[in-house]
């Protein structure tokens, strides 16, 4: 696993946080441009639908807004939102809980890591979406099936990043602790764990999106609730407004989750020189 497959599930070689921030997010002009762009896009959408082409194909922002309000008004949204968010969240947490110790073990026992490497990379390379039918077979259309789907997407992110994180622990720091006869538990607490925290947080950042993918894929295959199911059902009824409404809520969930991770990162990694 020395040469991990280039993928957006991995952290750049300079370590987590070394990537260039896409936008600083704090400058006023950036926000003005963003708002302007969104408004312009929505306006174009709103007025071209029904004029340039049949609004059946694209719906329009005003209809989506109305649907959204209706879903919130009658409370139906919570059933779907709650299902999808809890599936993704459970999958993410399980992925972290299982992936972190596996990652630590793979970094610690190099020989074992060498032996299982092709298996891990094979599973990692397998499009896990293709496992969905099996999961439905094994776990039914229960919550568990979607959680497992989500878990299978996320767990490799933690395994690979934690392994890499532990391998980048500064050996001089560990040697220095050894010269002061520090107990193993002390080294773990003061050196190893803080070194992998940035990698864990980066894994969460990447994992949020993937866990949602897992949950939605699970819902597309077999469910009776959830945002993925809502989108699927709307599509089946040729209800484009419903499809777009579901997609919009999913996007919102992902953005909020990302923002939460970002805030946690800023809290926990305050010792780092400003990277963003």
């Amino acid at each position, binding site marked *: 696993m020395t040469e991990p497959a280039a993928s957006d599930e991995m952290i750049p070689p300079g370590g987590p946080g070394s990537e260039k921030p896409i936008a600083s997010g704090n400058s006023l002009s950036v926000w003005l441009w963003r708002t302007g762009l969104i408004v312009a896009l929505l306006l174009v959408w709103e007025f071209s639908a029904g004029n340039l082409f049949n609004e059946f194909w694209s719906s329009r922002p005003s209809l989506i807004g109305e649907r959204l309000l209706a879903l919130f008004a009658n409370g139906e949204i919570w059933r779907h939102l709650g299902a999808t968010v809890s599936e993704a969240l459970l999958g993410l947490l399980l992925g972290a809980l299982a992936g972190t110790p596996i990652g630590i073990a793979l970094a610690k026992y190099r020989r074992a890591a060498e032996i299982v490497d092709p298996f891990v990379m094979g599973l990692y390379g397998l499009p896990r979406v293709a496992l969905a039918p099996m999961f439905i077979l094994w776990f039914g259309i229960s919550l568990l099936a979607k959680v497992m789907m989500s878990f299978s997407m996320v767990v490799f992110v933690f395994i690979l990043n934690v392994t890499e994180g532990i391998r980048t622990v500064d050996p001089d*720091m560990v*040697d*220095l602790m*050894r*010269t*002061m006869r520090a107990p193993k538990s002390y080294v773990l607490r003061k050196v190893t764990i*803080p070194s992998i925290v940035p990698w864990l947080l980066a894994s969460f950042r990447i994992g949020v999106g993937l866990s949602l993918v897992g949950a939605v894929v699970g819902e597309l295959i077999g469910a009776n609730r959830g945002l993925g199911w809502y989108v699927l059902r709307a599509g089946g009824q040729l209800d484009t407004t419903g499809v777009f409404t579901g997609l919009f809520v999913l996007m919102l969930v992902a953005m909020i989750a990302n923002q939460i991770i970002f805030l946690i990162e800023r809290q926990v990694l305050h*010792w780092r*020189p400003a990277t963003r």
Partner: protein
Amino acid sequence: MASRDEMKVAAGAPRIVIDNVSISYATPRGRLLAVDRVSLAVDRAEFVVLVGPSGCGKSTILRAIAGLNAAESGVISVDGKRVDGPPEHIGFMFQRDTLLPWLTVRGNVEVGLELAGVAPARRPARLADLLALLRLSEFHDAYPAQLSGGMRHRVSLGRMLAYQPAVMLMDEPFGALDFQTKAAMGRELLRIWETERRSILFVTHDIEEAVALADRVLVFSPRPARIVAEHRIDLPRPRNLRRLRTDPAFTAYTSAIWEALGDGDPVTA
């Protein structure tokens, strides 16, 4: 800050003894001899400097005393005890500051206090003393990333002193610093050492730094490291490093060491 084991060893017995030690490394192209039958002794309260070309194996000797690598043959002992694994009361300083970036200045120095087993109730006072000694009091809440290179090295020195080592092993500790900061750190180290003498074994490839600091300078050959010359530096203490540079005795020592280094293979700086 008297060292805790002052009584253990008969006064006059050397603190560190290295007897006929050889060390080699496994490399992809076979074993590489880094240290070739070296013998030396460091007395308590003695400041010994090892000079030699970069990569000659001086650091390997230091790491072996600290128990980080094993000697292949020969015996290393600290305070009369044979070294296998890190001995007690050893302070080590690397060329890099090796501070824990997620801890503040205070947190980093506290590592030394904690590992020395200083009771929690006594830590704040010791910490305040150390930070004052190293002129770091104002920065106790700063993280390493916010400090200059020189300040990070002072924190690193503070962490080592907090551990109350009887022996300080310093592996080119100021090698990465610019000329002025390096001189300032040298003065700082001497100031602290002259008030509270412990054994120091200090590795450098800077001859002037070696003569300015040392009681005794051991000159090493290019790899594999062998001792090719030994100079006792009889310059009075406390030393004024600035005045020292123009002192004829000082320049006599440095040129003698230049000469010793020049023997054999060309020196690679």
